[in-house]
Each structure stands twice: as C-alpha cells, then as structure tokens.
C-alpha cells in the first residue's frame, strides 16, 4: 500500500486547494449546488483514500466535515458564513494532518479536536438528527442450526443488474453441502419466453455449520430483486427469517427498475470540465532533461562555430560544405525547438499563485473590516515552476499591503465618494520574454507627502532635494520606510517592500509602483519566464567575454567625445540625446587593465536595470546568442555584479552580467560612504 501514499498525498493536497477555493467562491445564502458538489467530492475522495490507506485519524476528521457538506448538498442545511468559516478551518486542519503524515511531523491534536468540536456543534445544533440508525433486528438465535433451507425466487428483471443466480449457487456451495431443486412452473411457453428475463425459482438445502450472515451476504446485493426466505433446517418453522414478504415483492421490484428522478438530475449538472489530460512526473526528471538540452545547446553552438570556421578557412565552398552548413542550420532550429518545448514542461499557469489570494483576501478583509472584491485576470498565463514558487511570498506581501494600506475602510470610501467595496485586481500576461504581473487596487494610493516627510526624517532624501513623483513612489521600496500610522499585525513594519523588491530582483525581475493619490496604486512585477536560459549579447572586455542580458540592453553606440562630461573627476556622464547617463568602465568594475584611458570612439552598451540607465564601455560586441545559465552560487559562490555563467561554443566560460548589480556596484565605487548633506548622491538615480 505504501507505494500509493505519495499519489494519495499529492491528490489530497490538490483536493484541499480545490475545497478552499470553492469554499471561497461559495455565495453564502445562494449557494451554487455544483460548487457544493465539487467541495463535497474532494472531501469524499480524501476520506475514502485516507480510510483505504490506513490514515484513520484523517478519515475520521474528514468524515465529520463531509457529513456537514453532504447536508448542504442535499439542501437540508443552509450555507452560512459560520459553516463556511468552520469548513475553511477544517481544510487547514486536514492539510496540517496530511502534511504531518507525509513529512513525518507531529499532529496538533488540540487544534484538531477543537475544530472537530466546532463541526460537531454545527451538525448537532442545526442539522437534522443523525441518520436514523438502520436497526436491523437480526436475531441470530439460530447459530446452531444444522443448515438452512433457502427459498430463492429471482424477480423477472434480476439478470439485468448483472446478478447471475448460478454465481450465487457457487458461492453457497463454498459454504457447505448444497442441494438445489428448481421450480420451473413459472416458465412460459417457448414462444413467449424472453431470454433476458428470469423465471426459475430454487429450493436450496444448504447443510453444515454456517452462520446466517454468510448466507445472507450471498444475497446481499439482490435482496430487493428476489423473494428470499431462509429457514433453519432443524428448527421449527416459527423462527422464519424473511427478508421480503412476498406480498410487497411486486411493488419493490417495480421500484427497483423505475429510475429515481434525483439521480439523473444531479448527474446532468455535474459537468464542469476543469481537468485536462496530464501525467505526473518528478521534477528531477524534467530538470535532468532541461540540463541535458542545455548541454545540447552548447554542443550545437560549438558545432555551428567550428562549421562556420571550416567553411571560411577553406575559401572554396564545395557542395559538401554547403550541405554541412545546411545541416548545422537545421540542427540549430531543431535544438531551439526542443529547448522551447522542454522549457514549456516546467511552465505552470500563474493560477497556482493566484489561487492563494482569495483565501488571503477573505481572511484579511474580515480582520481589517474592509470590503474587497477580488478580480483575477490571465490566470492561464504560464511561467516557470521555480519562478512561480519564489514569487508566491512577494505576491502575498503585496496583497496584504494593498488591503492594509491601499483599500480604505467602507466609511472612508463612502466619504470620498467611492463605492463601499474596494476592488483588488490581479492580472498576468506575457510581454516579450517576460511575464508581467499587475496588482492594482482602487484604494487611497500612496500618500506622497507622508512618504517624502518620512524619507527626509530618516535622512534618505535631502531637505532641499526635489524628487519626481515616480521617485517618491519608488521610495516605498527603500529599506526601513513604513508610513503606516500604526503598526498592525497585517503589514506595516517597513521590512516588507524592500524584501519584495530584493526577492524579485534575485529572480532577474523588477517591480515598480504607479500611484495616483486617492485613486489607487498599481504594482507591476516583471519576471523572466524561465531562469534557465537567457538571450544574451556577447561582449569583449580586455581578454574576457561577458554576456549582457539582451532584455536590459537599450542600444549600443560609439562614444563621441563631444557628449562626454565629467563631474569633478569622480564620475563621467554621457549626454545621450536629452539625458545624461553615467558611464561605467567595465574594466575598472572587474579590475582589469584597460589599454587606453580615452573614451573617444569606444563602444558603449546602453543598459537599463531597475529603471536606471547606464552606459557600459566594452572593447567589442560579439554575437548575440541564447545561453544556458549555470548558477555561480551552486558551482562557486555568489559574486556581486554577476548573475551566473555560461559555457560558450568554444568551451570557454563567460560570465553573465547582472546589470542592476553592476550599476549598484558602480554607485558604491563612486559614492563617498557618508553623505550628510545628500548633495551629489546617487548619480545614477539623478540621471535616471
């Protein structure tokens, strides 16, 4: 049985997620029966599975929740907010129990007992009395009988439920010595005989020390489809045990074939195709394929390079050479396609993250006494599983933030002429090689004045410094800046937003906020679709090749000395059309020797990271190519300014630049550590 446990846990956790989501979808007072049915089904499966696989505690607990759901499903219980809340708690308890079982932890017995008590209280107070116990008055006084005399007459339709009298005879024969006598008096003439009906009855004598339960079990499934009479062989005939009195036999048979109207009606509404065909594979297998495809891409790049060189060297382009190049081009195409397909295996719809939000909104809005309507769009947008796992926490934080600081209380909203209920919108879509996640609320927006005052007080912004609106809004991502008037346990300790930005940055993404005071705020997160591959521009700095992520490159230009200007020898700026951008000499950032001091006619790659622009001076621009990212942290250690490394076609290692990191490094290199008056700080920021 052990081998099925993993599958059971996985599907149970999925089932719990479904229960949670659907419970949140449930319209209290006007519940959709299909939604209740879905919730019930999940609970039912968990109960069935946990019973089968020996997790009795889970089965017992789930049974109570299931009973409550069953009553809702059958319409004998109203769906109240109270019961939904208790059921949500039950989901948490079940999840905790299953987690403890799957990971070998401890169960919180007190919590389980208390939630179970709540469930039972609900069931006890309002529910209809517990199912009337099926009092089967089996008087097993005949255990000492020598055997049984069984009169068995199947109703005409019995064969049509797949019950074969012959199999029952076999089953009886296994219990003891059997003697049968067929009664064919009911058999019609051959012309009138319908071979699908049953007409024969039997008098069966079963000898041996046999319990009546065992005999009854043989006929268990057909008790409504036959006339059955079982009498002990030795006992007097008063102790007859008759299951179905012959008088009512006809009517019960009629009931058996008349389809119950309730059953098909339920079935026809049970149509909601949310599942698509899929198989479950371990993530390690997928990652292994991805890794191998990565190696394949490297080999392909190497072949392409060598092939190109051979053809150039020989000068003469024979037909064989042409064929080689053709083949290499085909290989490149195929490799790229394989790579894309393999990458897609790891992609999951963002709904996995979005689905956590409704519960959060439900709980928080209750706690904060706010009314919030949640709208989610683009749930089907796919992104890499790893990116998804890491974006969950920042998203949760942003949602908390929007509910706590963004959306106002109903009174405040009404006072400012808005609808009582606030709206939180989550939207996801693909843009270029990125996924964009927008989280917008129609709340109060960011109070710029308060942010600025706070920043001035904390010395983040100089007294006389003027900042653009965007720059002020951006301050909320600064460490240690919280504008909440009072700290709440929901958010507002000022340790959040900078962590959000840090986490998103570590995924190679960015986050920014747009806000209109009084109208709301929108957080826009941009993330790469995958962490494994990158479209890069290869550049040469001294003797080393570096990879600049293509997404961060705006343009590459040749430096004109007329546009150069320096500030007090500390930093150099370049006038790019109507803005000034700082110049970063890659040589000095990475401690390499530059052949010449002069910047005239040098190549400059204009890049943007975290909304800041800069020009990076390089020696040469090489090819653009897709590179497979190898983590420096796994293979070596984290290095500032670098996001990873890759292996090029010729087998050499090239480092991948982390543009935001490089800009930050450059800032620290060129900014005095203490800057009391705030003058001349953050050149990059000012220029941007």
């Amino acid at each position, binding site marked *: 049985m052990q081998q099925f446990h993993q599958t059971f846990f996985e599907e149970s956790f999925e089932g719990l997620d479904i229960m949670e989501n659907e419970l949140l979808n449930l319209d209290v007072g006007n519940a959709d029966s299909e939604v209740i049915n879905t919730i*019930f089904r999940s609970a039912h499966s968990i109960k*069935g599975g946990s*019973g*089968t696989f020996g997790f009795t505690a889970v089965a017992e607990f789930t*049974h109570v929740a299931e009973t409550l759901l069953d009553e809702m499903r059958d319409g004998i219980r109203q769906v109240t907010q109270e019961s939904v809340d208790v059921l949500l708690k039950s989901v948490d308890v079940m999840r905790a129990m299953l987690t403890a079982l799957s990971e070998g932890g401890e169960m919180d017995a007190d919590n389980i007992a208390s939630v179970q008590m709540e469930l039972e209280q609900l069931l006890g107070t309002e529910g209809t009395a517990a*199912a009337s116990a099926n009092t089967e008055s089996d008087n097993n006084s005949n255990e000492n009988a020598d055997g049984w005399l069984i009169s068995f007459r199947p109703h005409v339709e019995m064969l049509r439920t797949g019950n*074969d009298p012959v199999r029952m005879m076999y089953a009886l024969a296994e219990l003891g010595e059997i003697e049968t006598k067929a009664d064919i008096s009911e058999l019609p003439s051959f012309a009138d005989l319908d071979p699908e009906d049953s007409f024969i009855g039997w008098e069966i004598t079963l000898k041996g020390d046999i319990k009546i339960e065992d005999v009854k079990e043989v006929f268990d499934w057909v008790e409504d489809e036959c006339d059955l009479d079982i009498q002990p062989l030795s006992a007097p005939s008063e102790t007859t045990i008759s299951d179905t009195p012959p008088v009512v036999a006809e009517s019960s048979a009629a009931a058996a074939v008349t389809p119950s109207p309730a*059953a098909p009606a339920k*079935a026809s509404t049970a149509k909601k195709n949310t599942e698509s065909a899929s198989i479950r594979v371990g993530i390690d297998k997928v990652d292994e394929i991805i890794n191998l495809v990565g190696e394949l891409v490297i080999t392909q790049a190497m072949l392409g390079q060598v092939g190109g060189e051979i053809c150039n060297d020989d000068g003469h382009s024979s037909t064989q050479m042409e064929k080689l190049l053709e083949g290499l081009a085909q290989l490149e195409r195929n490799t790229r396609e394989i790579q894309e397909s393999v990458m897609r295996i790891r992609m999951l719809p963002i709904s996995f993250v979005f689905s956590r939000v409704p519960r959060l909104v439900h709980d928080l809005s209750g706690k904060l006494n706010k009314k919030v309507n949640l709208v989610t769009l683009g749930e089907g947008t796919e992104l890499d599983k790893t990116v998804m796992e890491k974006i969950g926490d920042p998203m949760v934080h942003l949602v908390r933030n929007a509910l706590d600081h963004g959306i106002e209380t109903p009174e405040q909203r009404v006072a400012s002429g808005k609808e009582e209920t606030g709206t939180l919108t989550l939207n996801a879509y693909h843009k270029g090689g990125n996924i964009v996640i927008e989280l917008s609320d129609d709340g109060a927006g960011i109070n710029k004045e308060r942010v600025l005052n706070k920043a001035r007080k904390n010395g983040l912004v100089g007294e006389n410094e003027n900042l653009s609106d965007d720059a002020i809004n951006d301050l909320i991502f600064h460490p240690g800046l919280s504008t909440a008037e009072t700290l709440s346990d929901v958010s507002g300790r000022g340790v959040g937003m900078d962590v959000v930005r840090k986490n998103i940055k570590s995924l190679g993404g960015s986050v920014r906020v747009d806000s209109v005071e009084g109208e709301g705020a929108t957080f826009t997160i941009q993330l790469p679709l995958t962490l494994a591959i990158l479209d890069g521009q290869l550049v040469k700095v001294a003797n080393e090749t570096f990879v600049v992520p293509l997404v961060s490159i705006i343009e590459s230009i040749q430096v004109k000395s007329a546009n150069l200007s320096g500030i007090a020898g500390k930093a150099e700026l370049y006038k790019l059309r109507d803005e000034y951008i700082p110049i970063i000499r890659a040589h000095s950032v990475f401690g390499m020797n530059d052949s010449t001091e002069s910047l005239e006619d040098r190549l400059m790659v204009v890049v943007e990271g975290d909304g800041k622009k800069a020009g990076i001076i390089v020696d040469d621009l090489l090819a653009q190519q897709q590179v497979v990212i190898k983590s420096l942290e796994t293979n070596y250690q984290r290095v500032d300014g670098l996001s990873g490394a890759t292996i090029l076609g010729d087998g050499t290692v090239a480092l991948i630049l982390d543009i935001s990191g490089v800009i930050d490094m450059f800032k620290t290199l060129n900014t005095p550590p203490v800057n009391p008056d705030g003058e001349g700080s953050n050149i990059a920021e000012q220029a941007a």
Partner: protein
Amino acid sequence: MASILAVDDSASMRQMVSFTLKGAGYDVTEAKDGQEALQIAKSNSYNLVITDINMPIMDGITLTKELRSLPAYKFTPILTLTTESSGEKKMAGKQAGATGWIVKPFNPDQLLATVKKVLG
C-alpha cells in the same frame, strides 16, 4: 483472463485497485471519470466494471445507467465503490442497474473476494 474496467477520479485509489487486480492476474484498464470510462467501454469489452460513485464530469450512477443501456453491457457485472455512510447510494447504484457494491474503505483481500464473487 478476465478484463476489468476500474473507474475512479482519485489516482491513488485507481492505482491501488488496479495494482491489486493486476497482481491477481486480471487485465485492468483505468478511467478517471464516467465519461472517459464510457468511451473506453464502448470500444472495448470488459467482464467487470468497478466504479466510484462521486466523480466529476460523469458520476458512477450515470455511468452505470449509460452502460446498462448498451447491448454489450446489459448483463456485465458492475460494482460501485461506496462508503458505509451512504446507504442510499448503494440503492441509487442498484436502481441504476449496478450488480452490487464494495464498501470503502476496503483492503486488497476484500476487493479480490468481491471480484471473485461476480467473476467466479
């Protein structure tokens, strides 16, 4: 050897049923809901159908009814998987034309004993 169609929306139950029956030498086909089972059943023939009752898309009761309406499944044994708590479900299954039921939770031995009861 007898062929069995096992229908359950829960992958773990399906695997357990299938593993147990295959171990006893039966030929087992799996389906994850009534609709899928019905399609498979139409293009193949089985000696026995074992189906869960609560399933998305098409439940076990509907599946049983649909199967019974097919000439090839008029007399084929159909067993429903049901829980003790749902006495009326057993009856609903019977009324739809099911041969009998297996009460959940069951262990592999109980499953095999019940299957033997209908397949002999």
